[in-house]
């Protein structure tokens, strides 16, 4: 038998994959995610429940037992533009506020006979005070263990 090469019936096929559709799909996905995803800052919350049985009643006269934290606008003190006072007594910074509030709260708890006797601490912020200052105050009061906190609102005109 003559030595003859057996010619294959078919050409050997190449197994190359067309990549163009895959790249198109990847671009579609990238554009879709770029348009739809929104990254938002991880957030928490501070519970600041209002008193359930009364509406806004600003303008209450301050009682002796009431502790009012006043946040007063001072534009010479960036970034929070805030002077802090407990009643009329100035407070140097947030740490001092925490120390004083802790002592006051402990005193009030000791003196109160019933839970209902404890007057809430009031946060009275000037109009222009940034929210961060209000949140800092809330932060300090909660850290000190104050259970009753209210926000002072202006009396209706």
């Amino acid at each position, binding site marked *: 038998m003559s030595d003859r090469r057996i010619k294959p019936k078919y050409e050997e096929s190449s197994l190359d994959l067309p990549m163009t559709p895959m790249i198109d799909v990847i671009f579609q996905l990238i554009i879709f995610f770029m348009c739809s995803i929104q990254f938002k800052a991880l957030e928490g919350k501070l519970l600041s429940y209002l008193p359930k049985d009364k509406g806004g009643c600003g303008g209450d006269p301050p009682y002796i037992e009431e502790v009012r934290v006043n946040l007063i606008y001072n534009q010479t003190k960036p970034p929070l533009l805030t002077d802090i006072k407990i009643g009329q007594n100035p407070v140097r910074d947030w740490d001092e506020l925490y120390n004083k509030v802790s002592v006051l709260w402990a005193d009030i708890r000791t003196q109160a006979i019933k839970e209902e006797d404890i007057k809430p601490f009031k946060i009275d912020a000037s109009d222009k005070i940034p929210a961060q200052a209000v949140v800092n105050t809330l932060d300090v009061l909660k850290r000190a263990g104050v259970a009753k906190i209210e926000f002072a*609102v202006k009396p209706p005109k």
Partner: protein
Amino acid sequence: MKIKRLAPLDNVGFNMTPMIDVVFQLIVFLMLAVDFTNLDLEFVRPALSTQAREDFPPPPDRLTVNIVHRLPDGVTDCPQYRYEKDKLVHPCQIDAHWKIIVRGQDMNDAELLRTLKIEADLDREPVTEKNLHPASNRYLIIRPDASAPAYMIGKVLEACGNKAVKIWRTEIGARNPGATD
């Protein structure tokens, strides 16, 4: 010895068209079914608070009131509002730059009160002889930008305390600097 030769293999390249069709089907399905956005949330730089607790899971049907810094039409830059590396450097004191936004809608005081009343009425304690103006069971979270003026928060709280609204379960959005992703 005769060596049996096998017939050469057929073309084994596979057809990409069905795969692309399936992928497009998946894309369309995901685009329609998944809501990556949350219309209630506006972009704010929340205040930092070490006492902020994790907001998960959020109460059902909670209302979100955003207090955002948004420039009016025609204004391209705010001369005051400045952050550096996510830290507040100077707050914006310009009233016209601050908006209260609920569900994507910019609201004035009257609109806010009206909206809160409608929402509060959806879930309210029953009216009784002793309680003619019962409180609402709805939750509400106020998401102020850290430099938003305090009177804006006061406006929202005042509206919540209104006799016709009486939403008392209010929360303030803040970011715990110790929280990690």
